[in-house]
């Protein structure tokens, strides 16, 4: 089965981020295809590479990036949500005259069309948080 996930909450703010990662790992372990993870609303903070997790906490961003690299999963940050929250890639930082890029290179900034596309191309679109 083909899955996509929609992640709505910031990593530190809700259990739903951990649940989304565990679910994503379970999807690929069970042999299903994970097509895309779309981070929307406060969920875009998953892609902020300047955030430093506490030493006794799992580095969930690294886990997402590893999962994506190993299983060819699209990690997409909603561009409108992301730039509003200071998660910018190089080209957005340049476009808006900001001093630094903060988006993790394993995540791509793109539009809501990527979520619509996930809805169209997957058997299941599963939401985490809200």
């Amino acid at each position, binding site marked *: 089965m083909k899955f996509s996930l929609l992640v709505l909450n910031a990593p530190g703010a809700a259990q739903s981020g951990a649940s989304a990662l565990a679910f994503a790992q379970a999807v690929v372990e069970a042999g299903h295809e994970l097509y895309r993870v779309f981070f929307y*609303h406060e969920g875009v903070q998953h892609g902020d590479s300047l955030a430093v997790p506490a030493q006794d906490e799992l580095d969930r961003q690294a886990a997402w990036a590893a999962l994506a690299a190993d299983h060819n999963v699209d990690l997409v940050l909603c561009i409108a949500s992301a730039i509003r929250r200071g998660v910018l890639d190089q080209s957005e930082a340049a476009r808006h005259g900001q001093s630094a890029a903060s988006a993790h290179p394993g995540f791509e900034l793109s539009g*809501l*069309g990527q979520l619509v596309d996930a809805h*169209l191309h997957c058997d299941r679109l599963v*939401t985490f948080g809200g």
Partner: protein
Amino acid sequence: MDGKSLLLVFRRPPYGRSLSRAGYDLALACAAFDQTVSLLFMDDGVWQLLPEQHAERIDARNINSTQASLPLYDIDSLYVDSPSLSARGLDPSALIGGVAQLSEPEVRELMASHSQVLVF
């Protein structure tokens, strides 16, 4: 397209958090990509359907103006869960126009008839 349909369920009050805004943005994006989208308001989401909201007094964007733009994007399938209205003492006649009232079984039917349901 392939006959897929999306139901967006709004369950939160209009202000305080920006989650409902994210739902409307997705509705407009669906319309821009020619996808069928329906909106259902239930629980505290029914507060979004009251007219004459003065959001400027709390320095927020008025959700009524976003709702007013929906017909321009051919989004005209708006539904409200009747039990949520009565639980809050809201009279259906007090709501903005163009919203169909659904009973509990009709809400279940609406959800079952869409291929995806997302909650905001």
